[in-house]
């Protein structure tokens, strides 16, 4: 069974559209994250939620809005998509307040292409 699963894996959409990426983890973790990987493979954190509460919100445009209906899910909604939003978005999860970094598990990624 996949520990951190994201859907869709591939998404091609036009500029101006609104789209969502869903993420679910079955590891019983309390904290979930969204990371963005650009064309140069640079990975940067966007958001983090712990038990449905926002704990990290990096400098991300307001068009990006995370939603956590429960601690096993963290969805990413993007409004008014722009060409620069094209990237791979990774969901991840970890245990709350556990310092060991090897508890951070990444999903397989969602490839977003804005045309």
């Amino acid at each position, binding site marked *: 069974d996949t520990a*951190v699963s994201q859907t869709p894996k591939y998404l091609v959409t036009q500029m101006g559209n609104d789209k969502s990426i869903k993420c679910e983890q079955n590891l019983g973790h*309390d*904290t979930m*994250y969204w*990371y963005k990987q650009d064309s*140069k*493979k*640079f*990975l*940067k*954190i966007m958001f*983090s939620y*712990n038990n449905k509460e926002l*704990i*990290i919100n990096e400098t991300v445009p307001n068009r990006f809005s995370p939603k956590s209906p429960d601690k096993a899910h963290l969805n990413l909604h993007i409004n008014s998509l722009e060409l620069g939003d094209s990237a791979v978005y*990774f969901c*991840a999860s*970890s245990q*709350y*307040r*556990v*310092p*060991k*970094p*090897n*508890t*951070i*598990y*990444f*999903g*397989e*990624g969602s490839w977003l292409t804005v045309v």
Partner: protein
Amino acid sequence: GESVGLHLPTLSVQEGDNSIINCAYSNSASDYFIWYKQESGKGPQFIIDIRSNMDKRQGQRVTVLLNKTVKHLSLQIAATQPGDSAVYFCAENSILTGGGNKLTFGTGTQLKVEL
């Protein structure tokens, strides 16, 4: 600002040789450093970590060295195999006061194993 960077974007090695991937960091307050492996089309996968109070840690075929004096981290892979071909990231882990971990990634090194 904080940054974690890699010296070489691409490293080519012969199968069976040892690989050394280097990383420089700037945040001397980091508690953990981690190496991740990202295979094509997949999410980052934990390889090995090292705490800031250590200078060496060994795993299966991998060794991480930490030199805090020059803020340098390296990953050594013994007897490199074709399956080791991937992008390798070093990352600095920070424990958040609100809980959870925040990873700051370097730019990545592409390891190519030649037969």
